[in-house]
């Protein structure tokens, strides 16, 4: 169930735009590889080339040392599958969505049914078979998309921002399913993300991709330990801040991230650090909350973005923070642009990179 994947001298251009620039890279058997990069860095294009649905302008993809060519592409495509960032489902039931790829492989009916059951169990959607896939919530839809890919038991699984814009519950179900698949089936997984926290925890190896080139690769500890320029350049958009850390008498760490903004973290570290706070971990309120959260900051709403069942807000609290809340909370709180709000998060939610 293992596969060796290699990309040699791969360049991909769209008209005058070079999306990938002479990439040489090897994906090891049974590893979870994180492709970390800003939006537009070339992550999705690279995944599409690995999924064999996009042809490189130059260069070649090798599966188990054999070059993928026009002659063997159909067979090679059966070794890989991809889950897209924007959930794409067929306009039919959950069952038929998951069954599609299995039917393409002409598997016996019993095998199809048992794999559907198993895949839906992995993403905790048992009993959803007869439901209309497109009428499910955003998170459930993405879980159906993952189940559809898992059911195929391909040797290579490609995931493009699988938890982007999902609530924490759905995101953690998906992350657990990814880990379990890699652990139990030894599936090689490539996961594109710009979520630093996910990149730090899920993959065994990370490749940083910047302007169509892989600039660095290594273990999460190596990559995050170095605090490379590439990492810092795109991380700034996602609740990642750099500053000076000082350990307090209480054993926590206070980080001065500039603009008179101080963040308290539970881990201990001194000197220059980068920190990350997941948007889902931040509680938003109109008045200061009496809670155990060690960090409470006052700010103004500067941006509101609608994301299906969720709303993403940018809060200027000395530094720009991204906060994610449900649409229901957003409506109930009657939030408007430029309104004063408070953000709160626990010291343990502050990840030191």
């Amino acid at each position: 169930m293992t596969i060796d994947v290699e990309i040699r001298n791969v360049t991909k251009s769209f008209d005058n735009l070079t999306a990938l620039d002479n990439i040489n890279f090897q994906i090891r058997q049974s590893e979870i590889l994180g492709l970390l990069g800003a939006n537009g860095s070339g992550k999705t294009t690279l995944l599409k080339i690995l999924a064999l649905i996009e042809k490189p302008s130059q260069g070649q993809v090798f599966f188990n040392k054999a070059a993928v060519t026009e002659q063997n592409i159909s067979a090679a495509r059966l070794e890989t599958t991809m889950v897209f960032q924007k959930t794409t489902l067929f306009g039919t039931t959950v069952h038929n969505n998951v069954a599609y790829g299995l039917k393409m492989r002409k598997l016996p009916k019993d095998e199809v049914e048992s794999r559907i059951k198993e895949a839906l169990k992995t993403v905790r959607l048992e009993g959803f078979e007869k439901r209309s896939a497109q009428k499910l919530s955003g998170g459930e839809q993405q879980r159906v998309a993952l189940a559809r890919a898992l059911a195929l038991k391909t040797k290579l699984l490609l995931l493009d921002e699988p938890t982007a814009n999902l609530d924490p519950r759905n995101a953690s179900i998906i992350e657990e399913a990814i880990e379990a698949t890699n652990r139990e089936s030894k599936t090689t997984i490539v996961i594109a993300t710009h979520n630093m926290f996910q990149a730090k925890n899920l993959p065994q190896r990370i490749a940083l991709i910047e302007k169509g080139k892989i600039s660095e690769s290594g273990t999460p500890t190596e990559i995050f330990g170095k605090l490379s320029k590439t990492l810092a350049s795109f991380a700034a958009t996602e609740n990642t801040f750099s500053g000076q850390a000082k350990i307090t008498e209480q054993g926590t760490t206070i980080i001065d991230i500039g603009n008179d903004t101080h963040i308290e973290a539970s881990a201990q570290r001194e000197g220059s650090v980068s920190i990350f706070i997941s948007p889902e971990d931040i509680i938003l309120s109109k008045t200061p909350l009496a809670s155990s959260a060690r960090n409470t900051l006052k700010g103004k709403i500067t941006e509101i973005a609608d994301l299906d069942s969720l709303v993403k807000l940018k809060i200027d609290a000395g530094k720009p923070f991204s906060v994610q809340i449900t649409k229901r909370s957003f409506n109930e709180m009657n939030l408007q642009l430029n309104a004063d709000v408070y953000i709160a998060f626990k010291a343990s939610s502050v990840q030191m990179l």
Partner: protein
Amino acid sequence: MTSIWDGIIKAFQLIFSGDPTVYEVTIRSLLISATAVLIAALWSIPIALFLGTRNYRGKLFIKGFFTAMIGLPTVGLGLILFLILSKAGPLGFLHLLYTPTAIILGEAILITPLIIILTTRAIEDVDPEIKNLAKTLGASEAQAAMAVLKEASSGVFLAGIASFNRAVAELGVAQLVGGSIAGLTEVLTTGIALETARGNLELSIAWTTILLAVVFGITLATLVVEAYQRRRK
């Protein structure tokens, strides 16, 4: 002056009296037009799949051409086909003039632009990632194209109904290449024209009523089936 009401009553009398000519002409009209839709779909759907799923230079021009061709006058097309199929014409040796086959071919050509444009629009409305998705799940190019078509099925269904209605209600092609020969090529529209020319207005209103009833009945039935299928999704 024959009133429309008298014609409608006459239509019901004709339908319920079991007049064999009424059933024969109605069934011939339906069969000819339905066959024309099926034949036109054979070439129109692949063209629509090409137009709807690919981007290339000149796409707008091709779409514009087919859109304009929807308005093709049926008499003009009938005349061209008459010249092609007549004894002296390039396809005269096929002896198709004044046969149901000639009407089927003519109607198929007539409705081709309509099926192409409506199906292309339906395909363009499908999530562009569906084709890639199908391929990542192991589908071949042809199977992926079928997946796109399946997602566009509501629109394709509507294209089928619209083109059937256009075919069954057209007169020019049926008149010029069919000739309205009783018992052979007479269809509802040529029947209306013939009876009007003869001064049998009551009968021509009766034919018109039957034609409208057929169009409404089939459209309604197909829409109900389509709505039922959509609810099941």
